[in-house]
């Protein structure tokens, strides 16, 4: 109950924004990496460049957006206030950003020291965040599937990062660990235990509310996150124990559960009462279609050896899930979160006496639409580049660069709008209070 006493205490604007503004910088770096390494990047999922690219997107882009968004939504959906959000945001942001850079450099150079520093930096940043968020969530009952999902996703993040740290220090072979097996468990927890569980927890609230769809069925939301968690735990244990016959079945069940979530979300979205789809809704739809495609491809490759033996399918799955799925949904959400936050902070600044322009004025609609088109072109080209790397790697890299430079431009436009309007509001308030004083 203590947490509720101040449950409007939204963190200062700078706290989530620093994460949101850093994310596109990492995607720009990812695009530069594609251009720098060329077609060789797509030779296999195990090339240093492919692994660096993966982590620039997962740790550099996704983790940044998710941490910033969590800072913002914990007080709203769970009444959980993080204490000293500004300090926490500064430290976590710095550690995770530095860690992502070190990790990418590690994959490109295979210097053990870089991996160790990356593990230390990301590990400290994430541990600090989980400590802060966990402290805020402690004692908040899991009265609904969203609060439960948020808590579980933090555990999923912790498992993912711990496994990642273990892999980083074991990479030189000193610890004699089954690296391939640990990598697939690390990937399973990162994709499903952290990312999908968090995405679904947020979707259960935001899809019905902002897209005006019917609610997700209760039988689904009540079981979704803990079922996925149970499957992951079971699958990881069975896999480590070496029971090869049951591990693919458990993995397939987890993938099917994720596919069910994507299909259900698409079905709900088709019943939206909104008059027109905006960029956010398009982004959600493409993200769910990509997720469905990634799940189908995974299931097909796992059950049909002629496909499973080809080296392209894991790369296609990765591009579909990371660029088509998670990045799409996150950019879509940023386009609602950032303008609303800017509006809301300006509104509070004006104390109800000076009204800021509405949130659609924060970033021009045409800019959002064009950036979205650039992103979709980049996803399509990346998919094609996996199949025809000689022809399409450079166009894909350029498209990715353009889409993310544009995203950065749009987010910076929101910051510039905030600064301009803040000045105006402060001026108006000073003028009116001076006028009131003179009248007295």
């Amino acid at each position, binding site marked *: *109950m203590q947490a*509720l*006493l*101040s*449950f*409007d205490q939204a963190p200062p604007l700078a706290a989530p924004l620093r994460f949101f503004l850093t994310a596109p910088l990492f995607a720009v770096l990812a695009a530069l990496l594609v251009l720098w390494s060329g077609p060789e990047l797509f030779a296999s999922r195990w090339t240093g460049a492919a692994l660096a690219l993966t982590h620039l997107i997962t740790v550099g882009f996704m983790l940044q957006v998710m941490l910033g968004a969590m800072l913002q939504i914990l007080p*709203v*959906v*769970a*009444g959980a206030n993080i204490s000293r959000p500004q300090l926490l945001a500064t430290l976590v942001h710095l550690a995770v950003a530095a860690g992502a850079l070190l990790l990418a450099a590690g994959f490109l150079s295979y210097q053990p020291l870089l991996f160790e520093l990356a593990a230390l930096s990301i590990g400290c940043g994430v541990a600090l965040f989980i400590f802060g968020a966990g402290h805020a969530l402690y004692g908040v009952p899991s*009265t*609904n599937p*969203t*609060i439960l999902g948020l808590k579980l996703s933090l555990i999923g993040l912790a498992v993912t990062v711990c496994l990642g740290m273990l892999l980083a220090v074991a990479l030189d072979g000193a610890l004699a660990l089954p690296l391939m097996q640990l990598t697939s468990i690390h990937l399973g927890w990162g994709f499903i235990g952290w990312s999908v569980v968090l995405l679904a927890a947020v979707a259960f*609230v935001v899809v019905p*509310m*902002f897209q*005006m769809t019917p609610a997700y069925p209760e039988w689904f939301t009540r079981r979704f996150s803990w079922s996925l968690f149970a499957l992951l735990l079971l699958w990881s244990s069975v896999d480590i124990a070496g029971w090869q016959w049951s591990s693919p079945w458990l993995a397939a069940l987890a993938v099917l559960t994720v596919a069910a979530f994507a299909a259900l979300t698409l079905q709900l979205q088709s019943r939206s*009462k*909104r*008059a*027109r789809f905006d960029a956010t809704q398009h982004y959600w739809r493409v993200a769910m279609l990509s997720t469905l495609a990634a799940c189908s491809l995974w299931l097909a490759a796992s059950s049909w050896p002629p496909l499973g033996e080809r080296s392209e399918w894991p790369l296609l799955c990765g591009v579909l899930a990371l660029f088509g799925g998670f990045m799409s949904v996150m950019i879509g959400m940023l386009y*609602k979160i950032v303008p*609303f936050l800017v*509006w*809301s902070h300006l*509104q509070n600044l004006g104390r*109800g006496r000076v*009204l800021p*322009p*509405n*949130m*659609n*004025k924060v970033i021009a609609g045409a800019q959002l639409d064009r950036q979205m088109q650039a992103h979709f072109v980049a996803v399509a080209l990346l998919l094609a580049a996996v199949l025809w790397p000689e022809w399409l790697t450079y166009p894909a890299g350029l498209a990715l660069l353009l889409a993310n430079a544009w995203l950065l431009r749009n987010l910076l436009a929101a910051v510039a709008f905030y600064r301009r309007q803040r000045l105006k509001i402060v001026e108006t308030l000073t003028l009116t209070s001076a006028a009131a004083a003179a009248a007295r």
Partner: protein
Amino acid sequence: MHEISELMTQDHRSCDDFLAAIEKAVADEDWELAQTEFPRLRDALLNHFEAEEAILFPLFEKRTGMYQGPTQVMRSEHMQMRQLLAAAETALAERDVEDYSGNAETLLIMIQQHNVKEENILYPMCDQQLADQLDALLPQLQKQLAGQAKTPA
């Protein structure tokens, strides 16, 4: 056990429906329909605010002693939504699609994040704290939500 939550949450959803109906009319450029739909949204929202500010919140505050807590935050958000509602109404009267859509979108997000807080946190607390007063409280709330109490301020 969850009577207050259920009643108030259901009312939130009907406000959403009115907002969607106006949005559709504006998108179709059917201004007359939009203008006949708008008062339904305005009345539903204002009645809802009034039911909380005049009936539910004071009981909650008295019972828990939390006068400066969540209810105070909700009251200030009501104020912001009243302003957005007025801005949307002006834009509608001027038949300005862009201005209406911008204000309505801001109002929608404002309403929804406000609803999340109430539905996840405040209403369950009300259910818990005011369980012994339901017999008197529920009919009062229903009456105010339906706009049959005295005209909201």
